[in-house]
């Protein structure tokens, strides 16, 4: 399909809009010092913390987001069907919520004075776990959407056939359904990981910023930006590289994927 010619200059502008800022970032990096900046103890601590927390958050979204995706899909029949669209909108809200709003929301739930404040007794505040919760909060929708849309695309026939063959629901779920949506789980996990890695606003608002505990790479960049712009640019470039890699991985051409 070829569009009209006048699309080309607009496409070029669109490309520039994305490329120029990235090019600008690259131009700010002191390449002679890049390696030493990125491997400086503070940077390494932040990057390691980011990877650890993002991994944990991804696992959390798998554990909770997959069942949530199933529940949402299950709602399409039965008495809750009319509420499905509303429930989905709420569950997916963190996807489009301003991050600071997410942080405030988390604060009012898990914070010292939050809904669960009495129960938790402030034990969550300023901990790595708080970072993971903030990241899982914003990353969860990716998993839910991935799982739900994968389930919608399935006819449910294999599950029905598995039942006629005598399989229990659990066995059908583990052996038939989950393997059938592995590509969706992988896509969801990769995107969730990327989102968790980039999480900033909710972490800043909810978890705080302490080296090695809650100061993830984005928070470190935020801090370095004022005092050491070169280091901030170098660290930013690392995150940009990760983001591009993740997107390339998650949206690789369909043909290379295993058939469902």
């Amino acid at each position, binding site marked *: 399909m070829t569009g009209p010619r006048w699309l080309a200059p607009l496409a070029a502008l669109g490309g520039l809009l994305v490329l120029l800022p990235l090019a600008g970032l690259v131009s700010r990096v002191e390449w002679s010092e890049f390696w030493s900046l990125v491997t400086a103890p503070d940077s390494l601590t932040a990057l390691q913390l980011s990877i650890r927390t993002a991994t944990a958050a991804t696992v959390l979204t798998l554990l909770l987001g997959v069942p949530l995706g199933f529940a949402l899909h299950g709602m399409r029949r039965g008495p809750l069907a009319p509420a499905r669209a509303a429930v989905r909108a709420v569950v997916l809200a963190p996807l489009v919520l301003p991050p600071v709003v997410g942080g405030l929301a988390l604060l009012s739930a898990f914070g010292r004075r939050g809904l669960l404040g009495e129960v938790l007794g402030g034990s969550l505040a300023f901990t790595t776990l708080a970072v993971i919760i903030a990241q899982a909060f914003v990353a969860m929708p990716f998993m839910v959407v991935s799982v739900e849309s994968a389930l919608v695309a399935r006819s449910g026939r294999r599950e029905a056939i*598995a039942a006629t063959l005598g*399989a229990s629901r659990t066995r059908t779920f583990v052996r038939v359904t989950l393997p059938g949506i592995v590509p969706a789980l992988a896509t969801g996990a990769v995107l969730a990981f990327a989102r968790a890695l980039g999480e900033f606003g909710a972490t800043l608002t909810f978890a705080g910023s302490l080296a090695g505990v809650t100061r993830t790479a984005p928070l470190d960049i935020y801090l370095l930006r004022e005092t050491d712009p070169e280091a901030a640019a170098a660290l930013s470039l690392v995150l940009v590289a990760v983001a591009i890699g993740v997107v390339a991985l998650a949206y690789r051409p369909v043909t290379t994927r295993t058939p469902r």
Partner: protein
Amino acid sequence: MRLEARVAVTSRGVDATLSVGAHRTLALLGANGAGKSTVLESLADVTRPDHARIVLDGQVLAEPGRRRPVPARRRGIVLLSQDDALFPMSVLDNVAFGPRSAGRKDAEDVARTWLDHVGCLDLAGRRPGELSGGQARRVAIARALAAEPRVLLLDEPFAGLDVEAASAIRALLRELLAGTTAVLTTHDALDAHTLADDVAVMESGRVVEAGPAREVLSRPRTRFAARMAGRVLIEGTMRGGRLVIDEVSSIPVSGGPGAGSRAAVAVPPASVAVALESPSIAGDRAWILDSVTTLEPRGDHVRVHGALVSADVDPELASELEAGARLWCGVPRGLDAYAL
């Protein structure tokens, strides 16, 4: 393993009653959209019918008023679907799925035995995506049978296969279905003939005619059943060894009920001759004056449907016909007549 069932799925306009004798195979014969698959899915609890009474060998699986029907996994009714629906695991694991679900320790041996049976033992390590259509169907059959079903349901078992694969599977099923309680759906009278002991003809969600395959297919009692059996039903009244169709036409037949009774003959449209002018009375055919209602192109020939008879003619002749045209249909003399 006698299966008695009545299932109704309102949204699909299905309300069918059928019974399958122990160790017999029933063919549900009907056109696309007649509700055949819906009936099978209802029997297997793949589709939840609005109204169902299903009794298998005295055990009630579902009945109106019963709160929860017996779930699919406890029915012992296995559905072999048109799309095979193989699971994302090796061929061997697919076939072992049923026995494993039943907790059998020797599931893998059972699976190998069945794979051998369908001639696919060499494919044991493959994934479903690496199979041809015919291979996938064989594996699906092995998987269904390995679960030791009390009743096997086969939904259009030759759908989507090329001619060669279909005929190989047909031969395999003829062997495997012997002695199995089974229901298969088809729109092909030949399949019903070769694979089934009994036939139930479905039209618009209802079973309109049922009985032993030979009886239903050679002596259909309704125009629809005749059509599904690949025949045209010529109805009339018996009078002195002739079947009187109307004031103008009557044909000599053999057998049939006594004079004055309603009776019919069923004849393949291919064996009906057509003449545009009044044919000579002599010859081995009896002629019926008819008028064209519709012309149905069927590949290399055209089926001419008249008010009374249908006939297959070549396209050249068909081009001279149009709806309302008068024509003479010649049917063989001495056809087997039977009471309606």
